[in-house]
């Protein structure tokens, strides 16, 4: 048994529906974008390096796991040095879980947690250093497409054990390089989940999950942006 049964308790998530939250947020953002604002579109690819963070039984350890990131970029100029950036993307998160047998010095990877999301980061991008560098901050709402647990004995479907939606706070820093009429961007982004990913945490049983855990990690992203014109 890899996970210790938690105490019986009702797991609470955000007080409003994530889908309604997303719709309200998109409508609010659409109203905030000035008519005729300069826009840019592009693509982004990168690497997501994250792990689970939170409850963990004795002799187990969460360890970072890498996964791909691929998606698009739509940016709207809100003002001098400030852009609104929407980046719908596919991202693979998860974690490795290490187990340290009694008497052992090091952890051995015993379980691989793979979580596939389609995500929508909504970020404010503020340019500094004459427009060559930028910082980003905002939120990322992600929908769980698939989840699995992989061990030496095989792979187990686990989507129903994790929360359907994940909301993360994003903090990033990067720089941009002009390439003819387009721009290359490179960004290092830190992500912290704000919600409990344990959907059925607290249920007793041999295969019960921990009560509280969330995703924590960094993304290294490269993007290509093409301005479309506007004001």
């Amino acid at each position, binding site marked *: 048994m890899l996970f210790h049964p938690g105490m019986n308790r009702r797991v609470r998530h955000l007080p409003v529906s994530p889908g309604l939250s997303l719709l309200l947020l998109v409508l609010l953002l659409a109203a905030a974008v000035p008519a005729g604002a300069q826009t840019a579109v592009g693509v982004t690819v990168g690497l997501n390096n994250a792990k689970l963070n939170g409850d963990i039984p004795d002799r187990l350890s969460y360890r970072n796991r890498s996964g791909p990131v691929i998606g698009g970029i739509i940016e709207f100029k809100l003002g001098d040095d400030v852009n609104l950036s929407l980046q719908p993307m596919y991202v693979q998160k998860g974690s490795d879980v290490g187990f340290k047998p009694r008497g052992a010095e090091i952890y051995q990877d015993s379980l691989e947690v793979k979580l596939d999301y389609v995500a929508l980061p909504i970020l404010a991008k*503020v340019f500094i250093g004459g427009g060559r560098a930028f910082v980003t901050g905002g939120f990322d709402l992600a929908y769980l497409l698939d989840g699995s647990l992989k061990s030496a004995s095989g792979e187990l479907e686990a989507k129903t054990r994790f929360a359907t939606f994940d909301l993360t706070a994003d903090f990033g820093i990067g720089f941009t390089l002009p390439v003819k009429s387009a721009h290359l961007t490179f960004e290092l982004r830190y992500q*912290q989940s704000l919600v409990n990913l344990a959907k059925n945490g607290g249920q007793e049983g041999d295969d019960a999950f921990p009560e509280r855990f969330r995703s924590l990690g960094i993304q290294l992203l490269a993007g290509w942006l093409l301005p479309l014109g506007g004001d």
Partner: protein
Amino acid sequence: MVTILLASACLAEDAARVPAHGGHRFLPLVDVPGPFTQTFVRNSVGLGTALAWETSPVVIDGVTVDGLRGNLLAALLEFEYQQQVKSWLAARARFKIAGRLGTEVQTLLAQGITASTTFELGWLFHLYRSEKTLLAGTFEVSNGSFTGINLTGFIEDFINGRETSLVSKTPVIRSGPGLNFAWAASDLVGVTLNGRTGYGESSDRESDSEWFWSGGAAIDFDLKTRTRLPFGLGVGYRFDSFPEGGAQAESYHEALLRLAYTTPGDFLISLDMTWGSLPLKGIDQNVRFGSTSINLRYYF
């Protein structure tokens, strides 16, 4: 030589980066932060104590046994770094370690030991600016871990045949917005207000996620404008729903006092003292506590 020293002092003042607005140089208290985006690094070390804390009397086989008296000790270590991104925007990171324990057998048995580590990331951005006032919004995310050693709970669970655990560790994530406001009433007097709310997990596993809130007000005096003494004085008040207290504590209120040395211009060293009242659940008592901390803050 005197001329050179005076010239250096004048240059240091002209280049001072401590928060100033409307002709007043502010002394932002740690617990009542201001709306300023200057880059700084801060370190705080403090100790607190609650004296003559009493446990509730218990009745055993019809005989009332008086409660025990003891002391509680708290320790705090904090690091904070704020980086100005734009004149109107700053990013902030803070790491805090706090511990609370009973110093005698009776308080150890009744209250156990609680330790917490918290890492916060956040943004501060100006919303409104006038000649004398400044308003900023904030958004912060905190990721914490609370470790408790509950001797009483362990013994009770053992007696009742429940699964026992002497040490409990609870991860907690919280986030939320806030507002910070400053008003330069004069070159001598400044007023700072702040309020913060948010939603997140409780440090008590038996409780659902909860809303939390805190706020404060402070008045600071730059004595150098009247006396040429490089000192500042700050007084304030703060309230906090205190989610870190977990199942054992309710919200608390405290009074704040700061004595600061204000020169050279980029460096601020202060002695902060607090006095407060903390109601404890389960016993009919308000714990009165006091704390003292030394704060070093360098603006650059």
